[in-house]
C-alpha cells in the first residue's frame, strides 16, 4: 500500500491522479512551477511544493529537483502522468535508484518502446505486424534511398518521436529531400536525436489502440480498444470506444497482438498499444505508449475499470482487481482546446471569464481549470476533456452534442463549435472516421456554420449589455452601489481581470 504519492505533472492529469489517491486513502503531493500557483491541482493536493526555475526544463522536467522534493516530503512513490517525464527511462531509473516506487513500467520497457525503430524490430520478433517500411541507419542519403525502397506516398518519422513532431508525409520523390531535412531538424530540436525512419503511408486508415494492464504477478490483460482516428495536426481530438470497425473476432486478434507486444518488453502497469487499421481490415503496430493516456477515461467508462487506481495498486505490488473484459455501451471523449479551429487550429490565449460545464446523465469532465483562470501560452492548450457515456453510439453522439451546446466558455477562443459540428457530420454519424478525415472534410480549412441569425443576436446582445452596463452592475453592487468610493476594505472584494 502506498502512503504518499508525488505527482510529477500538472493540469487535468494531476487533478485526475490526486483524486484517485484521495479515493484510495493515499496522500498526494503536488509540485508546480511559479506560473501554476493557485491552479486547481495545487488546490486539490494534500501537500504542495513550488518548483524553482522558470522554464519547463527547470521545473516539470527537472528530475533532480523533483527527486529532492520527493525525499524532503517523504513521498514513497512518483506518478508521472503523461507527457513531461512519463516516458523518460533515465527518470524512471533515477526514481527507482532513490528507493522510491515508480508508478509506471520497468525502465527497460520504456527504452525498448521509446525508440520507434527498436520497437519495430522487437515487434517483428514477437510476430506483431508492423507497418511496411524501413528502419534507417545513417543520415539523409540513407533516408532518401530507404524512401525509394518503401515507395510513395510515405511517412517519415522520428525514431525518438511522438506527438506529430519530426513527422512528414511525402507524396513524391521530388519532395523527399526537403521533407527529410525538415523532419530531421524538427526531431533534433524536439528530442535531441535526428534519426528518422520510413513507413508506407496508409491513407484512409483508422487509428485503433488497445489498452493494456499488466501486474507483477504475471497477469496481462487488454481492456478493449479506443478509436482515435479524428485528429488535427497528428493530434487526437475525438476518441471513442468501442470502434465501429471492430467485430469481436478482430478485437480478439488485436487484443492478443497488444498483449504479445506488452509481454515482449516485460511490461508492467498501464499502457497502450497503437495500431493502424486499413480499409482492408489489416492492422499494423504503430507504437506503444508506456504510460496513462489522455484518452483513458473512454476505456474507464465502457469497462468500469478505474485505470489510475489500478496503476496505484499494481505499483504497490498488488494484483490488479479487474478480471474478464466486459464492455458496456459507448463512450466518446472530445478534447477542448484553447485554439482557433477556423485559423488552422492555432493555439489561443485569454481569460476564462465564463466557464460553465455541462451537467446531467452520462457526463464526465476532466479539467485542470475553472472560471477566472487565465489561459497562457506557457503550456499545452488543453482546457478540458469532455467524456460522455450512453447505451449506444448514436445516443452517445446525441449526448455529446447536447453537452457541447451547454458548454459555455467566454473570454478565450476554443474548438467547442468545431467539435459540436463534428457530432452532426454524416461521416462521423456513419462511423467513417479516418486519420485524414479533417483534411478530407475541410480541405480549405474549417469555419463555423453561421447560417441563421446568430451574428444578429450576438450583436444585439453585446450592445444591450454594453448600454445596460452589464458586468459593471455586479462590480458596483459588491462595493455598495456608490460606484466611486473604493476604500481599502471594499476593494478586497473586487475582481481585477
Amino acid at each position, binding site marked *: 500500500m502506498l502512503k504518499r504519492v508525488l505527482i510529477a505533472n500538472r493540469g487535468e492529469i494531476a487533478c485526475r491522479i490526486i483524486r484517485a489517491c484521495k479515493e484510495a486513502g493515499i496522500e498526494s503531493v503536488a509540485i508546480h512551477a511559479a506560473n501554476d500557483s493557485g491552479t486547481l491541482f495545487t488546490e486539490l493536493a494534500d501537500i504542495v511544493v513550488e518548483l524553482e526555475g522558470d522554464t519547463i526544463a527547470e521545473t516539470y522536467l527537472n528530475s533532480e529537483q523533483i527527486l529532492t522534493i520527493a525525499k524532503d516530503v517523504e513521498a514513497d512513490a512518483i506518478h508521472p502522468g503523461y507527457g513531461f517525464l512519463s516516458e523518460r527511462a533515465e527518470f524512471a531509473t533515477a526514481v527507482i535508484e532513490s528507493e522510491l516506487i515508480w508508478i509506471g513500467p520497468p525502465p527497460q520497457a520504456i527504452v525498448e518502446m521509446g525508440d520507434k525503430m527498436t520497437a519495430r524490430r522487437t515487434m517483428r520478433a514477437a510476430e506483431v505486424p508492423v507497418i511496411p517500411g524501413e528502419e534507417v541507419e545513417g543520415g539523409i542519403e540513407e533516408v532518401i534511398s530507404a524512401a525509394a525502397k518503401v515507395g510513395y506516398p510515405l511517412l517519415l518519422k522520428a525514431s525518438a518521436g511522438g506527438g506529430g513532431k519530426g513527422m512528414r508525409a511525402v507524396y513524391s520523390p521530388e519532395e523527399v529531400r526537403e521533407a527529410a531535412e525538415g523532419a530531421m531538424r524538427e526531431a533534433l530540436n524536439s528530442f535531441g536525436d535526428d534519426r528518422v525512419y520510413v513507413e508506407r503511408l496508409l491513407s484512409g486508415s483508422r487509428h485503433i489502440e488497445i489498452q493494456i494492464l499488466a501486474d507483477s504477478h504475471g497477469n496481462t490483460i487488454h481492456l478493449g480498444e479506443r478509436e482515435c482516428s479524428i485528429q488535427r495536426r497528428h493530434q487526437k481530438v475525438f476518441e471513442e470506444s468501442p470502434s465501429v470497425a471492430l467485430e469481436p473476432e478482430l478485437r480478439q486478434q488485436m487484443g492478443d497482438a497488444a498483449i504479445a507486444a506488452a509481454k515482449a518488453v516485460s511490461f508492467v502497469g498501464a499502457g497502450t498499444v497503437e495500431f493502424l487499421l486499413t480499409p482492408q481490415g489489416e492492422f499494423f503496430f504503430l507504437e506503444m505508449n508506456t504510460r496513462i493516456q489522455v484518452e483513458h477515461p473512454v476505456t474507464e467508462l465502457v469497462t468500469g475499470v478505474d485505470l489510475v487506481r489500478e496503476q496505484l495498486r499494481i505499483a504497490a505490488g498488488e494484483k490488479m482487481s479487474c478480471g474478464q473484459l466486459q464492455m458496456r455501451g459507448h463512450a466518446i471523449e472530445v478534447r477542448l482546446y484553447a485554439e482557433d479551429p477556423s485559423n488552422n487550429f492555432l493555439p489561443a490565449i485569454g481569460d476564462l471569464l465564463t466557464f460553465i460545464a455541462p451537467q446531467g446523465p452520462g457526463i464526465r469532465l476532466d479539467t485542470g481549470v475553472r472560471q477566472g483562470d487565465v489561459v497562457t501560452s506557457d503550456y499545452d492548450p488543453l482546457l478540458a476533456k469532455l467524456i460522455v457515456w450512453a447505451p449506444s453510439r448514436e445516443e452517445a453522439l446525441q449526448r455529446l452534442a447536447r453537452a457541447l451546446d451547454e458548454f459555455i466558455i*467566454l473570454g478565450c477562443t476554443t474548438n467547442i*463549435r468545431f467539435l459540436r459540428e463534428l457530432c452532426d457530420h454524416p461521416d462521423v454519424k456513419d462511423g467513417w472516421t479516418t486519420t485524414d478525415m479533417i483534411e478530407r472534410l475541410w480541405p480549405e480549412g474549417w469555419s463555423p456554420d453561421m447560417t441563421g441569425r446568430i451574428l444578429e*443576436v450576438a450583436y*444585439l446582445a453585446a450592445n*444591450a449589455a454594453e448600454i445596460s452596463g452589464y458586468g459593471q452592475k455586479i462590480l458596483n453592487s459588491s462595493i455598495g452601489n456608490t460606484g466611486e468610493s473604493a476604500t481599502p476594505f471594499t476593494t478586497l472584494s473586487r475582481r481585477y*481581470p
Partner: protein
Amino acid sequence: MELSHLGEEISATIVRDGTSFLLGDVVAEVDDLVWITIDGRKQPAHVAKSKDAWWVHFAGHTIRLDIIEAGFSAAGSGGGLTAPMPGKVLEVLVETGQTVTEGQAVLVLEAMKMEHRILAPRDGEITAIHFQAGEQVTGGDLLLDLQAE
C-alpha cells in the same frame, strides 16, 4: 459602440424601448443574463466583456465581437477584398482608379440583416470593381481588385 467580427466591421440600428433593446424583430432584455426573444421564443445569451471584445454565447454558438476603439479601424487579417459571407452589396464607396488607404471602407455588404463594411487591407489603387450596389454575392467572391502601390 463599434464592433467587428473576424475583422469585418458590422453595424445595425438598435432601438431602445424602456428596458428592452430591439434589432428588427429580435428583442433583448438584460438581467443576470441577456434574454433574447427571437421567433417567439425567449432564450438566454451569456455575455462577458474582456479588454477588447464582447463574448456572446447563444444557442451553442460562441461569438467574439471585437470592440473598435474610436480612431481605430477594424482592418483585419480576415476577409480582405473577398466577400466574407454571402449577402447583398449595399453600397460601393470607391471608384476605379481611386487610391485608398489601409482601413478605409471601400464597400458595404449586407448579410444577416446587418451591414458589414469591407475595409481596404492595405494602401493601394482600386483597379477594378466587380459588383455594383444591389447585386448578390456569395462568400469568397472577389469584390474589388486592389493594386498595392
